[in-house]
């Protein structure tokens, strides 16, 4: 009698366990609704579980993929349609313990984007987060959550196309105004009086300001486009400095700020994207001029450190108030004293410079004290992926 009772209890427990497992399976299958695909793999990368969204997104049925290698079932391609090899896939790095989670690699705000190949060989853009499954401190598998970002990509492309077209449409009338005024300055269409020239000077300056704003907007768009090509070219520091100083000369003259450039290390040759380097140093120098007082000086310099080349631009101007320093790289942010001295700025410059530096694997830092001045540094590693190789000119 007792034995029978035990069996009944046992049966009940088995049934309950079965129901619990089925319930968990049902919950797992429904996770992510029809949007977020979830796939669990064992420590070898073989699929243990997938949810419904996985089946819908990839076109594979659950029974076809269980116990198969995830990387073989869903191949990954980069933006240029190159197949990503197993050892390069984050999944293999998560399983080997070299990466804890993809969010650590990419940062929460910007997950990596790539393409996954469906069963029918079509592809879709996706983004994913992969985390290891830990049991008693050991990696026993991984969970990957991914979703289709076709819509986001389309919207992003529309935004880029719109802004690009809008900027182009703005540039055309601005270039017209610029060229017509320059033609009037030449007096080939008639003499202009001194007073008229003053008016033209004002219109010309306003127009140049607008051109700069549109140009900055376009630079930002270019930087936000992941496909921007980074060039690697040999640049002599001497010609780089000459170019940057010539560009800044007019503004420096107007603000009565003396530009200085010590001769040390000018024979250096570096290998990186020259336009990007010029933009960053040009931005530093333009800030140094704008936020100095007449009669002061700005110094452009370079030095070699262990493993890096460090450019610097120093001024003795208004500086940045201590409590505002952490915000100066934010887009549109301008320090309070900067706004007072030059109300027309829009706070693009340092934000762009920082994005540009990241593109070439460099870092920007600064030291500043209010009313004493600032020094901005651009540190370019000698042998980083996008960085520089530095050598002395023979």
């Amino acid at each position: 009698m007792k034995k029978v009772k035990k069996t009944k209890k046992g049966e009940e427990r088995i049934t309950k366990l079965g129901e619990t497992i089925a319930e968990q399976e049902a919950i797992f299958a429904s996770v992510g609704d029809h949007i977020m695909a979830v796939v669990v793999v064992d420590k070898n990368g073989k699929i243990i579980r997938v949810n419904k969204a996985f089946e819908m997104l990839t076109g594979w049925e659950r029974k076809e993929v269980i116990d198969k290698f995830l990387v073989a079932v869903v191949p990954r391609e980069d933006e240029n349609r190159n197949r990503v090899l197993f050892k390069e896939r984050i999944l293999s790095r998560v399983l080997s313990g070299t990466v804890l989670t993809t969010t650590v690699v990419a940062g929460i705000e910007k997950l990596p984007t790539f393409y996954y190949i469906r069963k029918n060989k079509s592809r879709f853009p996706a983004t994913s987060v992969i985390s290891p499954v830990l049991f008693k401190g050991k990696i026993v598998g991984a969970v990957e959550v991914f979703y289709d970002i076709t819509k986001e990509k389309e919207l992003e492309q529309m935004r880029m196309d719109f802004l690009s077209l809008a900027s182009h449409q703005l540039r055309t009338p601005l270039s017209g105004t610029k060229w017509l005024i320059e033609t009037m300055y030449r007096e080939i269409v008639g003499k202009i009086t001194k007073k008229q020239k003053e008016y033209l000077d004002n219109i010309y300056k306003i127009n140049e300001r607008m051109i700069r704003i549109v140009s900055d907007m376009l630079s930002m768009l270019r930087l936000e486009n992941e496909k921007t090509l980074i060039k690697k070219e040999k640049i002599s520091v001497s010609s780089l400095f000459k170019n940057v100083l010539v560009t800044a000369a007019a503004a420096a003259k107007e603000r009565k700020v003396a530009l200085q450039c010590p001769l040390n290390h000018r024979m250096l040759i570096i290998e990186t994207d020259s336009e990007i380097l010029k933009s960053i140093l040009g931005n530093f120098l333009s800030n140094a001029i704008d936020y100095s007082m007449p009669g002061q000086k700005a110094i452009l310099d370079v030095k070699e450190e262990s493993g890096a080349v460090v450019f610097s631009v120093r001024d003795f101007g208004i500086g940045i108030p201590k409590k505002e320093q952490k915000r100066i790289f934010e887009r549109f942010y301008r320090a309070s004293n900067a706004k007072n001295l030059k109300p027309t700025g829009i706070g693009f410059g340092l934000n762009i410079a920082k994005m540009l530096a990241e593109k070439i694997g460099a870092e920007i830092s600064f030291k500043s004290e209010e009313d004493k001045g600032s020094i901005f540094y651009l540190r370019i590693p000698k042998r980083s992926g996008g960085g520089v190789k530095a050598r002395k000119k023979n």
Partner: protein
Amino acid sequence: MNHVLIVEDEDFLIRALEDNLVAEGYTVDIAKNGAEAVEKIGKKKPDLVLLDILMPQKDGFFVLEEIKKNPEWKLIPVIVLSNLGEDTIIKRALEMGADDYFVKSQHPIQEVIEKVKDYLEGRKAAKHRP
């Protein structure tokens, strides 16, 4: 007297270019779209072409292609003047055979005129790349 063809759809830009070129002693012809440009080159071969990219009907790439595939025209220097500053566009124009590329709003008109003089007066022209 050297002859320059301005291919541009905006009247105010045409005016600025034309006035400066005439002041330098060149003769000038105007085309306001790509098809008209090809037609004008066929009628009177210019010594140099100033070429916009975005134009109604046929664009600047069409003109560039027509110039470079024609054995009688392919040596005509072509300076692209466009407000499109994207790397891909500039690269495409240069690969198709454009001799120089200026993003209009970024350069004084005098710089463009000096470049024209470099080509037409046989001065050694350092290629301009944006």
